[in-house]
């Protein structure tokens, strides 16, 4: 379809809507934002007559590549270290995608703009596409990769693993609470516009470097739909800015959404890229370098900062703070270390770091070895069963962390941990901003203003609470992370599949009692708690070198 005829067609389809007089659409999802004064902004033009054949063609290319990968024995070249992390990533990502589809009626109901409604409805279909195409990719991995365990329990594991719950915010956050906070600010303005760059562009590049060219094939095809979604989000933002009363809410939501996306996405994608790769060329970008390019320059400087001309306060401090955590405070490294510490309750295997990895990390993040090297050496030393317990139950100088009540990533930058009694319970937060999210933002009143539509943080937010006081073997069994012989664990702290004696079984992990840091914290006296918190914040948590 030519550009001219597309414009004409788009103009024509604007005739489809009308102002109802007998009844108005059900008001299912509330928002505190107001759009009464908003001029209508058009998103990117899209007509279904051209959309369907275009997407079908994109699909054909993806499925052609999938056939080619199988015929070309791609799995002879994929790195197991990489593929194992895909068990986690691909368990999570189809849910955010389908949640984005489900978020569209929330935005449609909140924003009175029929042109935009069309754009949002097309986005809904895109998101159904993304969710199912990603599930299909996972299915292909399960069928053709050497170790299907973990892929085969994927959606169950997503629903009961602590890591799945962290990832689930990037999904539930799109569909719950204030309709604009969820479906516009969190989903589109931050998650899609900023963080899909690292998810769907940076990570696939790393996949290709690890022998997997199907992840790039699928995710670049997905990413090619995102520009339309970004356009939808921007249109809503401009409409929201027309009403002065919305600014306070926008500023609140940008702070929450930015920080939560940073906590969650950087934790996961940073770990996959840095610790899932075998590509240790010194001139390949680290996650921090990718972040600087894709998030700091392309999003923050080119997208967020220009919004200041509309008088919107941009969370400069939080952007800088996120960068500080990634670059100076080892956020990604600490998260990876935590994932590896908790390996028995994962549903994927985690390869240990080797000398080549140490050298690369040291060159990219000077000082890395001094802080993390000895721990990874201990991880390797303790990777096989028989003579030792899982590393979390051995004394390697690493204290199991408290979990952040808000973002659910543990409080790994220990000096920044905030502790507060909220709603009658002692809670720990990884940062001031996560504490603010729970105590201030997700409340029915914000800075003296009623915010009756704002959502709530709910659920059993500390995963460890679910299994407090239980034996590790019983926990793993309850989670269902056991292989088809009924005893060997799905997770392993290594990639050695060649010798059954190297594989951990339920018997190998039995006898270790699992404790919830939050339950324990709440059981302490005030003095014990104060001492514990001071010790937690002050402890380096660095494993001493064996040499």
């Amino acid at each position: 379809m030519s550009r001219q005829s597309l414009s004409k067609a788009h103009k024509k389809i604007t005739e489809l809507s009308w102002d109802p007089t007998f009844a108005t659409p059900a008001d299912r999802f509330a928002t505190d934002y107001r759009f009464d004064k908003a001029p209508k902004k058009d998103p990117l033009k899209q007509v279904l007559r051209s959309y369907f054949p275009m997407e079908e063609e994109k699909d054909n290319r993806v499925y052609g590549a999938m056939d080619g990968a199988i015929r070309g024995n791609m799995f002879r070249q994929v790195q197991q270290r990489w593929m194992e992390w895909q068990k986690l990533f691909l368990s999570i990502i189809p849910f955010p995608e389908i949640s984005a589809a489900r978020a569209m009626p929330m935005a449609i109901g909140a924003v009175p703009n029929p042109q935009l409604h069309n754009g949002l409805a097309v986005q809904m279909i895109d998101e159904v596409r993304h969710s199912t195409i990603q599930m299909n990719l996972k299915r292909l991995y399960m069928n053709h990769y050497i170790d299907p365990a973990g892929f085969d329990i994927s959606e169950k594991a997503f629903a009961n693993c602590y890591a799945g719950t962290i990832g689930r915010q990037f999904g539930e956050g799109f569909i719950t609470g204030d309709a604009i906070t969820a479906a516009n600010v969190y989903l589109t303005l931050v998650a899609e516009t900023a963080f899909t760059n690292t998810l769907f562009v940076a990570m696939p590049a790393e996949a290709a470097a690890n022998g997997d060219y199907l992840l790039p094939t699928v995710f670049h095809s997905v990413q090619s739909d995102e520009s339309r979604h970004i356009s939808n989000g921007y249109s809503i933002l401009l409409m929201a800015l027309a009403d002065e009363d919305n600014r306070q809410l926008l500023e609140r939501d940008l702070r929450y959404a930015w920080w939560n996306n940073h906590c969650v996405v950087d934790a996961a994608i940073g770990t996959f890229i840095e610790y899932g790769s075998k590509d240790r060329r010194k001139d390949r970008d680290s996650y921090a370098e990718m972040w600087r390019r894709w998030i700091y320059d392309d999003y923050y400087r080119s997208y967020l900062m220009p919004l200041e001309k509309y008088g919107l306060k941009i969370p400069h401090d939080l952007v800088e703070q996120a960068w500080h955590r990634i670059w100076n405070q080892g956020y990604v490294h600490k998260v990876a270390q935590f994932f590896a510490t908790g390996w028995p309750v994962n549903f994927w295997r985690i390869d240990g770091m080797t000398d080549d990895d140490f050298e690369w990390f040291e060159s990219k993040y000077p000082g890395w070895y001094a802080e993390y090297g000895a721990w990874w050496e201990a991880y390797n030393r303790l990777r096989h069963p028989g003579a030792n317990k899982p590393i979390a139950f051995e004394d390697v100088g690493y204290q199991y962390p408290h979990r952040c009540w808000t973002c659910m990533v543990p409080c790994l930058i220990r000096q920044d941990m905030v502790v507060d009694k909220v709603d009658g319970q002692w809670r720990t937060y990884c940062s001031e901003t996560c504490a603010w999210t729970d105590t201030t933002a997700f409340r029915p009143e914000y800075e003296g203003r009623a915010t009756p539509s704002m959502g709530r943080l709910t659920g059993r937010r500390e995963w460890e609470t679910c299994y407090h006081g239980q034996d590790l073997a019983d926990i793993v069994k309850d989670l269902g992370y056991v292989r088809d012989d009924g005893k060997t664990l799905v997770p392993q702290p290594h990639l050695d599949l060649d010798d059954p004696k190297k594989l951990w079984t339920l018997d190998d992990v039995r006898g270790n009692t699992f404790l919830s840091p939050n339950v324990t914290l709440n059981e302490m006296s005030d003095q014990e708690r104060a001492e514990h918190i001071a010790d937690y914040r002050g402890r380096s948590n660095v494993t001493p070198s064996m040499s």
Partner: protein
Amino acid sequence: MTDTTTAPGTAPRTPRSFPTPHFTDAEAGALVFPSSGSRSFSYYTPQKMRASMYEDVTFDVQPDPERHLLQGWIYGFADGTAGYPQDWTRLRATDWHRFRDPNEEWEQTIYRNNANVVRQIQQNLANARKADAYQQWTPTWTHFVEHHVGAWMHAEQGLGMHVFVAIQRSAPTNMINNALAVNGTHKLRFAQDLALYNLDIEEQLPGFDGTAHIAAWQQDPAWQGVRETVERLTAVEDWAQAAFAANLVFEPLVGELFRSHLVMQIAARNGDFTTPSVIGAGEGDYDRDLRWTRALFELLLTDEQFADANRQVAAGWLETWLPRALDAARRLQPLWSQADEKPVRFEDSLDRAKDRLVRLLDGLGLSAPALHGTPEGDRS
């Protein structure tokens, strides 16, 4: 690895850096170990012996605290509800997850099906243009197409955007919500098909009023019953009621009445071979949409625990929606006398629509008493 090769006669190139391929032998079957042959999703039970692609890519993607969701929903609405509450409809199910879409919709089926439809329509319209087909229409038929075929686009748009797209956030399982999303997609595509068909005629046929459909939809008394019913359908909060009333009452009684029992019957006799090909796409959509709708409501109305209660609720919905839809259908009656060639009578068309509805409801164990009563609001 770096590559410093330089083409003859050119300046030395900056060394390129690229990863080295490694042969890892990480393909299926390379080793035998526990679970090395576990190559199917084991967390759900497929409907048949072997899981379908559709089930694999759809089932359990939307989690459920009643299945595997250990920590529960982690975000809530202000009133404390979270996730996908089952009480967003009055219907109850012993197990919502038993529903499977007989169309087995996932991305490839969605795009293949809809791309085929738009290609078919565009090809038909190209042929019509080549044959100057619109120029053969009588002024009476032209008026019928610009007003009445045009007016129908709004019904599709309203149902697509504000009924089906709107409720695909609301059902308790991914399987149901995806079926609703695809249904909404059909409606929106068909609405646009009709709008762009209208534009095509406007560009080809001098004197064709491409905006007449707006006034017809908003002011023509014959269409006000349809518009009212569509608008009332958009206002329904209960997602299952909205789907039930739209696909099991409005569509057979009003949608098929207009599309199948009027336009498809009279267009050819009035020298029009293109309109049926466009309207036929909508008929195909509805066949598809009806399949999932019947499958869902058959399940709910025969539920081992809640069948009786659900049938009562559905009967109540019929009491509300049958008179409305019947009234809307009857108010369309003037359309049957507007074309030059009138091969069908309104009452015959309505009887066919009613028969179809009765069979449909009968298949679900429901009856439609309102259909046999004295027609109220007969404004014809």
